[in-house]
């Protein structure tokens, strides 16, 4: 325990870094995933922008990228991360790779949640003359908002998990903290401290997500 107290500043820095990595990844990956998810939903046959070719390409793309284990994806995407962020290692590189991986994962969650919206509701909007963009923004997304918030909460938790791998490519955060000061120093208490902080963080975010979703769903 006495080993942990002098590490407190490092622990706080690690928490900050994890939040920074996960927050930005959720933002970029979230936007990317929303766009790909909307693309999948709107181009499937019978939908607003039905287009077999676009749907097929998006579908295959998502199926290729989504199942790759993140640690392998991280290594494979390193050249790309380097050319985009200027470095293959560090927080920004991992945010790039994490966002990319998250976007494909989120796209399926978005697609699934949008599919729960009754087609009749979309038809009702079409019947009063609403255009496609208006329907997507004012009907489709608001109607699916509750489950979408829960989906994004789930992704936040998954991103905390994935971000722990960041330590392997020189990124910071709680994963790196646990490896560097706990595992490598043979100090399980430090590792457990990192675990405890992650648990608190995840609980907090899940609680906030549930509350917001409940408010939106009014139940």
């Amino acid at each position, binding site marked *: 325990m006495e080993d942990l107290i002098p590490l407190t500043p490092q622990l706080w820095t690690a928490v900050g870094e994890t939040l920074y990595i996960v927050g930005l990844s959720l933002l970029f990956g979230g936007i990317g995933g929303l766009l790909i998810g909307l693309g999948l939903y709107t181009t499937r046959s019978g939908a607003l922008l039905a287009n077999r070719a676009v749907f097929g390409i998006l579908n295959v793309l998502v199926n290729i990228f989504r199942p790759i284990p993140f640690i392998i994806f991280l290594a494979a995407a390193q050249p790309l991360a380097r050319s985009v962020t200027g470095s293959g290692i560090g927080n920004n590189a991992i945010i790039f790779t994490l966002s990319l991986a998250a976007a494909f994962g989120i796209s399926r969650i978005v697609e699934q949640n949008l599919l729960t919206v*009754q087609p*009749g509701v979309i038809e009702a909007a*079409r*019947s*009063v*003359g*609403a255009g496609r963009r208006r329907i997507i923004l004012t009907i489709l997304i608001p*109607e699916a908002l509750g489950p979408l918030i829960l989906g994004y909460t789930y992704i936040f938790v998954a991103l905390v998990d994935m971000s722990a791998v960041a330590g392997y490519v020189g990124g910071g955060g709680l994963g790196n903290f646990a490896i560097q000061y706990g595992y490598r120093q043979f100090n399980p208490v430090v590792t457990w401290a990192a675990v405890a902080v992650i648990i608190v963080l995840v609980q907090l975010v899940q609680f906030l997500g549930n509350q917001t979703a409940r408010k*939106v769903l009014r139940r």
Partner: protein
Amino acid sequence: MALISLRNVSKTYPPARRGEPPVTALQDISLEIEAGEIFGIIGYSGAGKSTLVRLINGLEASTGGEITVDGRAVSGVPERKLKSLRLDIGMIFQQFNLFNSKTVRSNIAYPLRVAGRSKDEITARTNELLAFVGLTDKAGSYPEQLSGGQKQRVGIARALAASPKILLADEATSALDPETTQEVLALLRRVNRELGITIVVITHEMEVIKDLATRVAVMDAGRIVEQGGVFEVFSNPREESSRRFVSTVVRGIPSAEEVRTLRSRHEGRMVTLSFRDGHSSQAAVFLELAAAGVGFELVYGGINDISGRAFGHLTLALKGADQAIDGALAAVGHGIKVTELG
């Protein structure tokens, strides 16, 4: 020119699998719906009536023939050019299809936002509509807090928001209980009478047609098999499927099976007399039978009031000499159809 006109309209869907023939949903549909009327379209599920009504506001595209609404072509027009037409055609649905994420007021306001009306206009118009459908106190409620009848009233208010000329009702009462159905039908009659809106009603319930429509088209397997005034179709259905629908609300000539049941309880000859208004009265028939010394008992049937006109089928068990009965029936036969039951 008719407000809604369909000429030789057809609709086929591409086959589900390559190599199979295309699926025909509608074939050679011709309809003229006049401004101000309530036009009913009845058929069993799968007859194509839902597809037909969606051709009118372009939710589905026809694959043949010509559709015009209020002088504007609908067939072959791309979706983005249908906005002004759709603002002129309201639509209500079996499952109401309300926006669950929006309050009652926002649901009703939605078409007005699409139409680009100002905030003040939207507030004034939604207040007017809330009062018209009797839901002023529910303005801030969400759809899940409403009963089925209230949901459909919101649906009607939303459909009327942009002051359309036409209202399409797709099985609008099929998800409602009988009492609520009457409530919604009464509201639709008000929409027609007070606002002068032409209504196209799609249903599989003959009761709805009987209570609401002025003219009716009967659909079967993607075709219109019979159309005409509601009184004409009810009192004298020509096609088999029309007869089946009419029999759900009108007791006509008893079927062979029903005749057997009647025979087990009643003696003597059995005849069905079919009346239509303006021809001959029941009183005259009964007098004639009594004068000939024929005993009679009413065993089956009834008189119906449709669009304010009466018709009906009365089945009588007759007791008396054959000659007396023949004489009496021949005397009343004028204007009344007599069917001898075996």
